């Protein structure tokens, strides 16, 4: 089998000592950034990306895989210990993780979250290995029109599923796409929306937008909590491990939540937050003692953690095979790949299988290393949480700026980044989701190109967009997803839910 051969080669490369050092290094840095309240994997990857600029593509991929996993592990550390999720996906870990820590079971909580994440991630990588090639092969059948519709579908799904209302998601998408139109138009050579600023001719780099919206915007948001002074309660830990009994209780829920998380994660827009909340509610319903949930039930921590990591791997499927990121975090990962000159998409698996499988191999190695780093060393790592945020946030800002400069060597991007940082802050106040905007900025360029190619093929007629069965089914999917929230709303009016499921 070719795939196994590539995977095996990838594993061999990823296990070279230098790469092991890199993944550990990336993992530790990622964990530290991830532990900061508000800063999740997306911010972690965005801020730490410049570190990889001078590395070889392989080294860079491996480091980024480490950062990605590390930030995810880190997010749940702060959920458990200070009841503040690093990002949305770590929210469910606060429900039972924090009560566990309060009950004096911080060690078990830290251990089960790492174990569940590890198992969830690893099993999902197996799913990914099985599914990636068929999906990529299928995607090769897409012409420009289908590709355009696929992006429309992905963007509308993201808008319809993101919190807040769908209209605001659409507005965010439109503005994101508009940001992507800035710069010289590749087909006609005409500069668009550059306001005669030389630096804008090459367009607004999506990484700058991401760092602005995520890093700067999130730091601004965090300022309001900085003075509330949430502090880590426990600084000394015993052996971080779980008892046999705890393991017996948790493993079925981990195995149940993994496929759930993977599927939810693979859908554009759903992502880790939804996956972990669904897994949590699912286990609560299955449990014989649902009243224990929220009071330090270990299953209530194991399930969302497994689902969250599974979702993060599932989200790689549309990103790697179709070139369409399904979440803010995968969008940033895609940005990292593009930065390295790797174009994710169906061709990645046929033309550069070594890169595709190398990334997957480094994720496998990454999850092992991170589990090793996070279980025995968790006691040391969480000391970071006792460093005052008043020191850490300015450093994150400093890293955001140096990262931006490293991308473009231009100060103009500083202003753009500050603007997007403020925009992110205000969007949060107005409850407009930022994820659709990020996705739009990333796919905007390709989306317009496919649109124009399609209309060129059809000599300007728009019929090409419903001219094939594939196109029609993509339109149908879009309509269903856009209509779904409305249908759900009217259904819930007809059949009021028995009991509101606790989500906060």
């Amino acid at each position, binding site marked *: 089998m070719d795939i196994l051969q590539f995977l095996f080669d990838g594993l061999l490369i990823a296990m070279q000592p230098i790469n092991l050092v890199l993944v550990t290094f990336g993992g530790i840095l990622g964990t530290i950034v991830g532990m900061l309240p508000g800063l999740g994997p997306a911010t972690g990857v965005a801020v730490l990306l410049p570190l990889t600029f001078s590395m070889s593509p392989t080294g860079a991929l491996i480091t980024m895989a480490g950062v990605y996993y590390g930030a995810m592990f880190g997010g749940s550390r702060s959920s458990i210990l200070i009841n503040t999720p690093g990002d949305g996906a770590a929210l469910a870990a606060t429900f039972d993780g924090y009560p566990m820590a309060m009950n004096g079971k911080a060690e078990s909580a830290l251990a089960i979250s790492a174990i569940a994440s590890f198992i969830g991630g690893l099993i999902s990588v197996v799913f990914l290995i099985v599914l990636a090639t068929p999906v990529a092969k299928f995607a090769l059948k897409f012409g420009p029109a289908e590709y355009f519709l696929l992006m429309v579908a992905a963007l509308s799904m993201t808008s319809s599923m993101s919190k807040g209302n769908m*209209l*605001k998601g659409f507005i965010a998408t439109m503005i994101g796409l508009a940001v992507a139109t800035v710069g010289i138009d590749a087909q006609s050579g005409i500069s668009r*929306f550059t306001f005669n600023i030389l630096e804008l001719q090459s367009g607004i780099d999506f990484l700058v937008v991401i760092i602005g919206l995520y890093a700067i915007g999130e730091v601004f948001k965090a300022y309001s909590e900085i003075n509330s002074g949430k502090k880590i309660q426990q600084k000394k830990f015993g052996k971080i491990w779980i008892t046999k009994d705890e393991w017996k209780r948790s493993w079925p829920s981990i195995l149940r939540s993994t496929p759930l998380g993977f599927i939810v994660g693979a859908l554009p827009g759903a992502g880790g937050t939804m996956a972990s909340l669904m897994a949590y509610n699912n286990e609560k319903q299955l449990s014989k003692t649902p009243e224990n949930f929220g009071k330090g039930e270990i299953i209530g921590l194991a399930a969302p953690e497994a689902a969250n990591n599974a979702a993060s791997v599932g989200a790689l499927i549309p990103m790697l095979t179709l070139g369409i990121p399904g979440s803010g975090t995968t969008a940033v990962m895609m940005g990292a790949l593009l930065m390295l000159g790797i174009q994710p998409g169906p061709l990645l698996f046929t033309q550069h299988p070594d890169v595709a499988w190398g990334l997957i191999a480094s994720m496998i190695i990454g999850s092992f290393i991170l589990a090793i780093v996070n279980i025995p060393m968790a006691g040391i790592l969480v000391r970071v949480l006792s460093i005052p945020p008043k020191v850490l946030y300015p450093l994150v800002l400093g890293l955001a700026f140096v990262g931006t400069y490293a991308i473009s060597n231009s*100060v103009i991007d500083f202003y753009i980044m500050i603007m997007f940082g403020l925009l992110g802050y205000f969007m949060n106040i107005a409850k407009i989701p930022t994820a659709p905007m990020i996705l739009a900025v990333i796919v905007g360029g390709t989306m317009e190109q496919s649109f124009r190619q399609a209309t*060129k093929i059809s000599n300007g007629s728009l019929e090409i967009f419903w001219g094939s069965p594939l196109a029609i089914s993509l339109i149908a999917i879009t309509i269903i997803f856009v209509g779904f929230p409305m249908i759900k709303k009217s259904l819930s009016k007809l059949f009021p839910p028995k009991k509101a499921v606790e989500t906060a």
Partner: protein
Amino acid sequence: MEKQKKANFDFLSGSISVIFGLIYGVMSYNLKRSPMGDPLAPSIFPLILAAGMVLFGLMLMLKSDMASTKRAFALIKEKTTDNDILSRKMIMLTVVSAIVYAIVYEHLGYVISTFLFVGFIMTVLDRKKIRRNIIISFIFSVMVYYVFFYLLGISLPMTPILNI
């Protein structure tokens, strides 16, 4: 939630979207015509986006009303704590210092400008520990410069006079 009068910024957000869409649309239409192929080709996609912004913006405005936005502003005013005022001040100072940072960045060089910027923000966040802030921001700026310049080979603006 009880039967409360809605308070949200949707009306404002919608109108911003409409205004932005109109400006963007006019700019798209006024783009230079393409010398080859369809002369309007570079404008079509932006025009579609502009139409989307106006349409979705109007829909959002219709779903809400001006009174809700007014209530939302009033609510924010009413609920503002000293902590909020403080954090808003912090944000403003951060933005201002970031703009100053951008202006002096290439003139003062990375190390000096970053030391001032990070040190200043740390002091904005925590006024009491000035000595700690000076030490940490100094170590940070020197370390980042060293890592980027020597280990990663990414050039950052040099420190004037010293030329390192």
